[in-house]
């Protein structure tokens, strides 16, 4: 496909109009002098149209799902239904304050309650909280629940270890550390948890084993029932990282697989928009052991009335202000009830069909390290590119020139030059074929052109090393740099 991204030499917003240095900030009566801001905030005064033009131009220098196939593995970049955007902006949704009386927010509470009931079915776990703001936030809260559970049983002194496979998302070990556990990696065998290694690693020190299934190699952990038994026999908890739930909706669920607690990412599986990095919405689902430890409040139904229940003596308390990201929960609810029973299963089936088909097509160009029967995503290895003096990074950049988003690269680390591809159920066969054709043009291009990519975007290859070496993180830093530049031309770009 011929693709040219817009390239506006758009100034930064503060260069669109002079701010007014020196102008005093207004005084508030009764506010002592020393507490006052002296100069008004330095920021430009612009017309509404000027602001709109600026950000519209910036938006034209950005890929989104509605412009491009977005093949980031483990991110589940599916279509975000427009109808949800309309509904989330209704007065009855947006114009609600979390502190308004429950009697005036019955619809919101009922929607949350209904979504929670639905998610108990999807997860197979009886207790659900929508409080976490994101997946990693849910992981962290779940590990605090595990902590509280073992504290109450008097085992916390001993159970200090969280086990995870070497394919785990980076958030898993980071959350475990924040929750005060030490972490230990279990090596994989053929891309899946090596059961023997797990068996020798579990002990009475094991608090929890964190697992995503299907895993980040796109493989279903077929030993899951034995894994659950192994962890439980050692007295540990089994944690489900729901980032990859899309592949198994309606086929299996964490409860059936033996998990004690799970987080879901509504911004992946349930199609709420990623917003350039957020907001997300996390879900915590727990079995009977950990259910009492879920954060407060819980949404409960009494007769026909809904209310927020704070009377949960074992609860870990709060993990964020208010109760969850209601605006996102509403969108997820829309997605779930639109698809319904058969539809949700169809989501998983089509996502897996797409993934296997694209895996087959792209597997002609680069090796696939493990089994070719995959779930929602698959791995390639860019190792053969090295012989041509090309890296996986170059291939990713070259793909951008085709007008499609690159896969996740260099993760998981157990595969050399890993390329992780996921195009979910909302991509058509035509989209998959176009992606495969773009991939073929990219991977067969000359090393020179691969290394020079991208050429068709708003900028050429971005110098990330320089960004880290000489952190320039705000307007103030840029002004300083410009001040230096007046003494001489800016340093030429590093190659």
């Amino acid at each position, binding site marked *: 496909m011929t693709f040219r991204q817009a390239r506006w030499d758009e100034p930064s917003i503060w260069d669109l109009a002079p701010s007014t240095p020196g102008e005093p900030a207004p005084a508030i009566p009764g506010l002592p002098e020393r507490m006052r801001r002296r100069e*008004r905030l330095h920021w430009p005064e612009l017309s509404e149209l000027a602001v709109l033009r600026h950000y519209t131009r910036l938006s034209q220098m950005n890929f989104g799902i509605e412009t491009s196939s977005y093949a980031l593995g483990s991110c589940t970049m599916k279509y975000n239904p427009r109808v949800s955007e309309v509904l989330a902006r209704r007065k009855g949704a947006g114009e609600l304050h979390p502190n308004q009386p429950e009697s005036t*927010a019955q619809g919101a509470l009922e929607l949350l309650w209904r979504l929670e009931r639905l998610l108990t079915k999807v997860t197979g776990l009886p207790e659900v909280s929508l409080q976490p703001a994101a997946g990693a936030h849910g992981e962290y809260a779940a590990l605090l629940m595990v902590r509280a559970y073992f504290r109450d049983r008097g085992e916390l002194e001993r159970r200090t270890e969280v086990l995870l496979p070497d394919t785990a998302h980076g958030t898993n070990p980071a959350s475990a550390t924040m929750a005060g556990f030490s972490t230990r990696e279990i090596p994989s065998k053929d891309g899946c948890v090596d059961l023997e290694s797990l068996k020798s690693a579990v002990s009475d020190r094991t608090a929890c084993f964190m697992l995503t299934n299907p895993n980040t190699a796109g493989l279903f952990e077929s030993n899951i029932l034995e894994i659950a038994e192994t962890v439980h026999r050692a007295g540990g908890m089994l944690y489900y990282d729901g980032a990859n739930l899309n592949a198994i909706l309606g086929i299996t669920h964490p409860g059936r697989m033996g998990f004690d607690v799970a987080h879901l990412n509504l911004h992946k599986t349930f199609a709420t928009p990623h917003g350039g990095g957020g907001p997300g919405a996390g879900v915590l689902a727990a079995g009977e052991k950990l259910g009492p430890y879920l954060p407060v409040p819980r949404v409960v139904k009494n007769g026909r009335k809904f209310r927020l229940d704070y009377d949960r003596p074992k609860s870990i308390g709060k993990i964020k202000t208010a109760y969850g990201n209601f605006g996102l929960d509403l969108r997820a609810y829309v997605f779930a009830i*639109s698809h319904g029973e058969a539809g949700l299963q169809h989501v998983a089936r089509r996502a897996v069909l797409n993934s296997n088909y694209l895996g087959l097509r792209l597997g002609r160009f680069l090796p696939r390290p493990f089994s070719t029967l995959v779930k929602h995503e698959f791995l390639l290895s860019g190792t053969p590119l090295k012989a041509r003096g090309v890296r996986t990074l170059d291939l990713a950049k070259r793909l951008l020139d085709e007008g499609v988003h690159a896969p996740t690269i260099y993760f998981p680390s157990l595969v050399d030059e890993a390329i992780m591809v996921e195009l979910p159920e909302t991509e058509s066969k035509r989209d998959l074929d176009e992606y495969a054709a773009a991939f073929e043009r990219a991977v067969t291009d000359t090393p020179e052109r691969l290394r020079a990519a991208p050429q068709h975007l708003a900028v050429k290859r971005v110098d990330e090393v320089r960004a880290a070496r000489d952190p320039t993180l705000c307007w103030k830093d840029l002004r300083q740099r410009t001040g230096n530049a007046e003494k001489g031309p800016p340093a030429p770009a590093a190659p």
Partner: protein
Amino acid sequence: MDGTARSATGSGVARWIPDEPGEEAALLEALGIPSIDALFADVPKKARIGRLGIAAGLEEADVVAHVDKLLDRNRPLSKFSSFLGGRISARYVPAAVDSILQRSEFYTSYTPYQPEASQGMLRALFEFQSLWVELTGLDVANASLYDGSTAAGEAMLLCRRLHEGQRFLVPASLPWEEKSVLRNYATGPGLQVEEIPYDPRTGNLDLEFVRTAVAAHDVFGLLGDVPNGFGHIDEGLWELKSILGTVPFVVSADPLSLTVLDPPGNYGADVVVGEGQGFGIAPSYGGPLLGLFACRKEHLRVTPGRIVGATVDADGAPAYTLTLQTREQHIRRSRATSNICTNQSLLALAFVVYASVVGPRGLASLQVSLAEKARTVASGLGSIDGIQSPRFESPYLGAFTIELRSMGAEVFLDRLRRRRVLGGHSLADPRPGAPADPPRVLVAGSDSTTEKDIQKYVRAARSILGASGGTA
């Protein structure tokens, strides 16, 4: 089920999953398998479920009708004279702000891992970081955290990286939710969140308590908030740095207040966090929100969250990218500075677009006008026997605290509600067993508050408390 015909799936909104005639059949044929079932051969029989047990899918029009019916059971703020505020506010958002948020290039994009394809979002985030730096008087800001309370939690963990000790001091007046979130962030590393008592007359921090605590050499950080949990401005914050010395100082600040207040960087704050929802984001029953985070440059490498930096491209042209990623979970894993992956980028965009549309003069005028309204409400309520309003003798901006002399806060608020007044929110911790606080209510005006709303509140309160004292 072979999944070849849409009608067979029972899926409601057929358009969301492509289904050109023969499409699935062609995919299956390429794979050389008869049915999608073959692709799930690796899921053991014992691990499978029969069905979810949820309702069949709905068509879009039916979904809209159903959700609208639910939402109609809510009574949005505009149905009341509302005085709800605090960390989450309900202010008018110019239509232009949301029109930018609805650009699908922004809202449907992922974290900008490929900077060349994501310059738009990266530049917007860089502008957002710059704005928070300007407001706070600090050096660097990150690209957002979940909300104000989790930003405070991350700030506390940052302090512990900078300073030895086990105790983190916070105002006793901090909203109970934020204390609870902080205690959760303290659990992992085994830290103590300790409350600083306040002067019962002013609500200000007991600086002697801080002095004594710091002298014990076990305090690794302190958080002060502006306005504080009572809505008031504590002059003591301006004294704290000299008491704390090298102990890190976190300020949690309302961004609008910083258009008229001395930036915390000027009085020694090492970290400034805040809740950014008031800038262009609907309250939406409490989420999504926006966590703001800025700190001093020397602490950059131990800072949590995504950070956008300016650099150049291969031609030397200006370009932007996520930077200093070696701090982050996807690289550093168990040794990361935080587990943050998802943040609140789209809300950060709303923040900077809102500030740019309203402009620096408009923002400051808004704060001035909110402060005027709050004073009018405070003196109106103060004329009623049975209410001490404002409760504390210290300056305030758009919100303040009242105390009821002879009625519980919940009863008072419920009776107001019946008169179509949302009179604020109770400051009490609603968890059973929580210490019983005096009946206090945080009251805030908003830009939509009219003279009539204020009169209505005062009249309703007077009638509920059954007395017409004072001079009003």
